[in-house]
């Protein structure tokens, strides 16, 4: 049972990632337009993506504790390490909040005083969509999540010291987990509405929160497969076998289908209902972001479905790593597509001085802006393409890499603080001898 320690090589690579990310953020900041929509939306996408991954890790851990699930025990310390990132998530979201009050960004249409004054819909929502509620709920809820994450990890680690496994500690662990599940279930929906859905401030969908959560879940599982494979090459997690990967593969396969099910339910009902207030969300994405709109369905459904359908592909390193990389990037792109169009639209509304009828003239205002931009940049002809919004550019991927580096660095540090093998867990023996 090797104790994990972050190596100097890992440190330099991860700091390199973070350096690239920081550089990309700085470059984005300086080449960006007024109000810096590209810079801030990149910041928001990555903050939400990685905070969500650590939230869902906590949620799944709790679900597993109370469901008498044993097979994940040999690698549960990795998920516990993910959950500790919530504190960083809290700080990242606090930066967004500072921007909200300081007027540094226009990520949210509802935060713009001029728009609010002329927009009845936004006024109707202002009881929920305002900087105060955003701040209180964000800090309060992520704070509570972090509290649970710490408590559950502390209890889990306290099992290690006991020579024979303690039913009492395990019982406590189950109680705290059971307490977190309803809290996490209710509060995550509120944060998804505030952080992501309110980017398209006029639009609403009751399914949205569950859809976003499913996206986080698949990303979290994919990252777990990738990290476990990496750690095994270094000689850590020696008890994680091909059978554990097989089960993780089933999860990625199953939850990719689940994500698609939610995607389809949301899309189909809105398409079939054909109510303008609702279809605008998909219409914008289909017309102006076709590569991403259709692309994420291929990346997040078709590819993992066919790659992981067979039994043996879930047991082979090559196919599992490939599928994990695909869906991890795919779900990041999903968040990209959730956030970017709304931010760009708000930017045009605010910067272009649009008054009301915001959702109606999206195309025209966007085109007008792009024509003027294209002229300024000396382009031959205008198109609706806008780098960093229509598709992610190098700067976006660089920023993503930076946040990934931050997340991994934090996780590695946390892994080093406890045994990798939870010696006192009552399910350890089952997990070590796990066979599918």
């Amino acid at each position, binding site marked *: 049972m090797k104790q994990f320690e972050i190596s100097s090589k890992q440190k330099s690579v991860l700091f390199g990632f973070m350096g690239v990310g920081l550089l990309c953020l700085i470059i984005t900041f300086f080449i960006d337009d007024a109000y810096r929509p590209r810079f801030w939306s990149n910041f928001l996408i990555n903050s939400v993506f990685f905070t969500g991954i650590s939230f869902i890790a906590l949620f799944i851990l709790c679900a597993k504790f109370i469901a008498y699930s044993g097979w994940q025990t040999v690698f549960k310390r990795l998920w516990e390490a993910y959950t500790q990132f919530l504190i960083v998530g809290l700080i990242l979201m606090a930066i967004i909040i500072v921007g909200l009050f300081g007027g540094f960004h226009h990520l949210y249409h509802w935060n713009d005083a001029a728009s609010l004054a002329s927009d009845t819909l936004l006024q*109707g929502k202002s009881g929920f969509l305002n900087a105060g509620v955003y701040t209180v709920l964000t800090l309060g809820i992520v704070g509570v999540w972090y509290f649970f994450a710490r408590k559950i990890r502390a209890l889990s680690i306290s099992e290690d010291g006991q020579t024979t496994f303690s039913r009492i500690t395990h019982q406590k662990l189950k109680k705290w987990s059971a307490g977190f599940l309803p809290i996490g279930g209710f509060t995550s929906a509120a944060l998804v509405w505030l952080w992501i859905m309110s980017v398209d401030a006029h639009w609403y969908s009751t*399914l949205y929160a569950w859809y976003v959560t499913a996206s986080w879940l698949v990303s979290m599982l994919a990252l777990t497969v990738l990290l476990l494979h990496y750690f095994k090459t270094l000689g850590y997690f020696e008890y994680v076998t091909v059978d554990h990967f097989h089960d993780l593969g089933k999860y990625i396969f199953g939850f990719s289908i689940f994500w698609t099910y939610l995607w389809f339910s949301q899309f189909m*009902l809105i398409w079939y*209902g054909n109510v303008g207030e609702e279809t605008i969300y998909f219409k914008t994405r289909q017309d102006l972001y076709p590569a991403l709109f259709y692309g994420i369905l291929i990346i997040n459904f078709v590819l993992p479905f066919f790659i992981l359908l067979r039994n043996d592909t879930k047991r082979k390193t090559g196919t599992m790593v490939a599928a994990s990389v695909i869906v991890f990037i795919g779900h990041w792109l999903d968040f990209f597509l959730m956030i970017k169009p709304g931010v760009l639209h708000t930017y045009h509304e605010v910067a272009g001085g649009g008054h009301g009828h915001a959702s109606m003239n999206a195309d025209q205002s966007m085109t007008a802006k792009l024509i003027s931009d294209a002229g300024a940049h000396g382009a031959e002809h205008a198109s609706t393409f806008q780098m960093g919004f229509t598709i992610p550019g190098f700067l976006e991927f660089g920023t993503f890499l930076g946040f990934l580096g931050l997340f991994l660095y934090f996780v590695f540090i946390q892994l080093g603080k406890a045994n990798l093998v939870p010696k006192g867990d009552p399910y350890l023996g089952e997990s070590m001898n796990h066979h599918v």
Partner: protein
Amino acid sequence: MSAVVSPIREPLITGRKSYHDITEDICAPSERAPSLTWVFAFIVAVTLLGFGVFSILWTIWFGIGSWNLNRTIGWGWDITNFVWWVGIGHAGTLISAILLLFRQKWRTGVNRAAEAMTIFAVICAALFPGIHVGRMWVIFFFFPVPNTRGPLWVNFNSPLLWDLFAISTYFTVSLLFWYTGLVPDFATLRDRASGLRKKFYNFLSFGWTGSAKHWSRFESLSLILAGLATPLVLSVHTIVSFDFATSVIPGWHTTIFPPYFVAGAIFSGFAMVQTLMLITRKVLKLEDYITLQHIESMNKVILLTGTMVGVAYLTELFIAWYSGYVYEQFAFLNRAFGVYWWAYFAMMTCNVLSPQIFWFKKMRRSIFVTFVMSIFVNIGMWFERFVIIATTLARDYLPSSWSYYTPTWVEIGIYLGTFGIFFTFYLLFTRIAPVVAIAEVKSILKSSGDQYIEEHEKHYQKAIDNKVKQH
């Protein structure tokens, strides 16, 4: 299945049973003469069934006018009952397929009866669309077969048609799944029987000999059917929810409907399983196979799905306000405080508030509380459908057409009749087939039998140490 079992797990078979005891205990109910209780229950069920048939004939003879449907409320008890029964029909396949994929061993005690219940519930459900068309003799118009009706062709754009496909597919796969599991158990009964009874079970068991080849094919088939059944379970109630959500009626057109209907269906299905299993285990003396541990696990599922449904209710309420759409806001205000406020509060109390008592272990393990709760949940889930359907339709865009709806005796009679169908089938099932899957329970004896649990304790630490030494 992992051979090493943590001693923290509770036994799922009690009474230190041997393989032979299991065969004896589970076969016994179908080998003795029916008890007086059974006969009495059967008479009641058949009477209800008869009354249901009478009410249906009344409907066909006099037409749908014998129901109280009115100008805006074109869907009343019929569709409410339809959705309610389809929902109940979710637990069986969920237990067999999804819990199989999640390797939950406790499913073996209850899967057989739950699957049977699924099939009977789906039969009850399928009845309603059939009679709701009014002219039952043209029911074959439902099916997209070549015909001479010209433009009278099914509407492929209609979720009602998708429903037909979803439910008939689900029914077929559930039936196959259930029957596949029954084959080895019928063979066990056959081997113990003689005379006509032996011939009967010989026919039912397809000449099963229990050879390795048979088991191998049995396992492959079960796995394939489980793989097919899993998406089907989700699809059925998803499409039922589409019946409502594809419309543009405020209160119906909401994207959360598909997953929320599925959660609600599992919720009500488990409640019905509880109702039946609590009686069955007592009457047939199967307490060693359907233990308190099973009941507690099912109560946890009820708590989980009940809370999920609660999250969905609150999401709907919140988003209705958030949408800024006055009709949507009115629809939900009307649900809670309109003419049918009592139905809404019955729904909220039974579905969201009352299952919360299952946070306490004592309550989860109390047979009395579980039984009362299982009835509560079924009442609550019936009201949920009634709230969605009647409350919404009673208040449409034109205040001049606002109306109120109460069922006639015919509608109530048909509903009671479905209970007759359901219980007649279920009672026959308990006489003919083993209500607990014999072969499946045997497969978990060595890992979950109480006498082996004590053995696990001794070997468990050794299993860990051996593994550590290997590395």
